[in-house]
């Protein structure tokens, strides 16, 4: 037993973090719609299912062992099984159900159960991000395995390294307020590994594969932006000025990233697109994620704008290098997450958060930037390698491999993987 019993619960803080957990939960359906709108009609359900299924499988794995592997114990590299099956997470303390804080989180003012639930939602959405890259061609069974293995073998360790005060990257001094490294870099690089094993969609890049419903994508965008307040401001773990700062940084970065993307798009193609607005906003949300509670003032304006502009160019890289990242998980989440994590080395301002540090622009010198670089590098290497291995092994051992047949790809995932059609509006 490493944690300590939480004694002073604030109802206000608890209220906010419970709500934040619900908001982050909503992001997974939001992501499903965001992605689902972008695929072709025949693959919509395949996409929605891969995302919703994460709510099913990862939730269970998380309460079983995932949480404990991420936040149990004091080992540098991996948690333990102290909290497996939620043991001790909800310890009745005078009927108030308080429980054991994870090691290093003794100052929590919320029930550890709330913390566990909040972190659960991160564990659910992170692998779901990968579905955007592998869209339209992975067998559902293969996804089930990849999802489960990844949640345990990749997510929990990286979360431990960075989020747990006992993790080696945390101890070295890397900062990651709400998951720039743990969530976005991690999922983004895993997406790249997965598609390198999986291969390109048939017909890509020759055939046009336009989004089948941009309104669906925009519903998703709205939900993601809304939920991201839970993601980032909830990471303050209380209803206070820090949460407020994170809230504002989040929305400002999303806004400026939207502008950044659209400006360059307009300059290059002559039009500002709706999908560009949505993509820019998400890029900004990604980039501000690690920074949200560590920067202040006009930093989010700069971080957001850069994220929008750079991700706009990054989504074209796939054409140059020839990897088929269907919905730009690499271009948006890997690049945006990297950018945010590194820019934090410049823009971090200890005046914003006592638990933070000063970056280059606030007199903190280069050390934070160095730690940030180490954290993302370690995550990239680890996540890429393990994900690649998982995919290679699954490809070898699963009967039917990880990819649907040519014919099934032509027919679409909806009918072949799920025996359903998304829209049956026809009369016939």
């Amino acid at each position, binding site marked *: 037993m490493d944690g300590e019993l939480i004694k002073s619960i604030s109802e206000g803080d608890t209220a906010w973090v419970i709500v934040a957990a619900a908001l982050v939960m909503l992001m997974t359906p939001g992501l499903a719609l965001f992605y689902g709108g972008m695929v072709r009609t025949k693959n919509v359900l395949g996409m929605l299912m891969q995302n919703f299924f994460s709510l099913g499988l990862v939730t269970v794995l998380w309460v079983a062992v995932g949480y404990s592997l991420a936040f149990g114990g004091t080992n540098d590299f991996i948690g333990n099984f102290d909290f497996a099956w939620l043991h001790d997470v909800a310890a009745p303390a005078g009927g108030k159900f308080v429980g054991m804080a994870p090691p290093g989180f003794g100052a929590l003012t919320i029930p550890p159960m709330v913390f566990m639930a909040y972190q659960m939602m991160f564990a659910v959405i992170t692998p779901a991000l990968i579905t955007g890259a592998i869209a339209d061609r992975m067998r559902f069974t293969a996804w089930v395995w990849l999802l489960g293995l990844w949640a345990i073998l990749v997510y929990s360790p990286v979360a431990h390294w960075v989020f747990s005060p006992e993790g080696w990257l945390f101890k070295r001094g890397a900062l990651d307020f709400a998951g720039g490294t743990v969530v976005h870099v991690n999922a983004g690089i895993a997406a790249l590994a997965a598609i390198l094993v999986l291969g390109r969609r048939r017909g890509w890049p020759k055939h046009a594969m336009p*989004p089948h419903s941009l309104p669906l994508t925009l519903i998703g965008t709205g939900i993601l932006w809304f939920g991201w307040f839970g993601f980032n401001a909830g990471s303050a773990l209380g209803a206070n000025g820090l949460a407020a700062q994170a809230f504002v940084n989040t929305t400002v970065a999303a806004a400026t990233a939207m502008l950044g993307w659209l400006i360059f*798009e307009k300059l290059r193609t002559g039009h500002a*697109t709706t*999908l560009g607005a949505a993509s820019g906003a998400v890029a900004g949300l990604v980039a501000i994620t690690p920074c949200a509670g560590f920067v202040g003032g006009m930093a989010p304006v700069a971080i957001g704008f850069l994220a929008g502009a750079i991700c706009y160019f990054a989504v074209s890289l796939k054409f140059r290098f020839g990897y088929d990242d269907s919905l730009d998980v690499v271009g948006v989440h890997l690049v945006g997450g990297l950018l945010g994590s590194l820019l934090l080395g410049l823009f971090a301002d200890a005046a914003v958060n006592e638990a933070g540090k000063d970056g280059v622009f606030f007199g903190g010198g280069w050390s934070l930037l160095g730690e940030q670089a180490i954290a993302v590098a370690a995550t990239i290497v680890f996540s890429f390698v393990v994900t690649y291995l998982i995919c290679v092994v699954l490809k070898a051992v699963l009967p039917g491999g990880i990819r649907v047949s040519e014919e099934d790809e032509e027919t679409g995932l909806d009918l072949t993987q799920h025996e359903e059609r998304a829209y049956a509006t026809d009369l016939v």
Partner: protein
Amino acid sequence: MKLVTAIIKPFRLDEVKDALKDLGVQGLTVSEVQGFGRQRGHTEVYRGAEYEVDFVPKVRIEILVDDADAERITERVVEAARTGKIGDGKAWVIPVESVVRVRTGEAGPDAL
């Protein structure tokens, strides 16, 4: 009996329908089609990936007519559908051997 078919611009449909009503035409059948022709399509851009869509939305009108009316009706359709700009479409006439009204089984001109 003839079958007059016309491919026209969708927003001319109301005019064509009204013109045909005025001529005493009692029925017609309409469907959505995509046309490819001299009128160029458009470009779409999604996340920087541009692509060309060659097809332009059109409407197909089909009218079964008595032999004697075919020419007049075709002319009227063409007039009503014309905007004078490229892409206005085509109209053509095909011979029909027999027509039946499903409801009554009436055949020939009575079926119209």
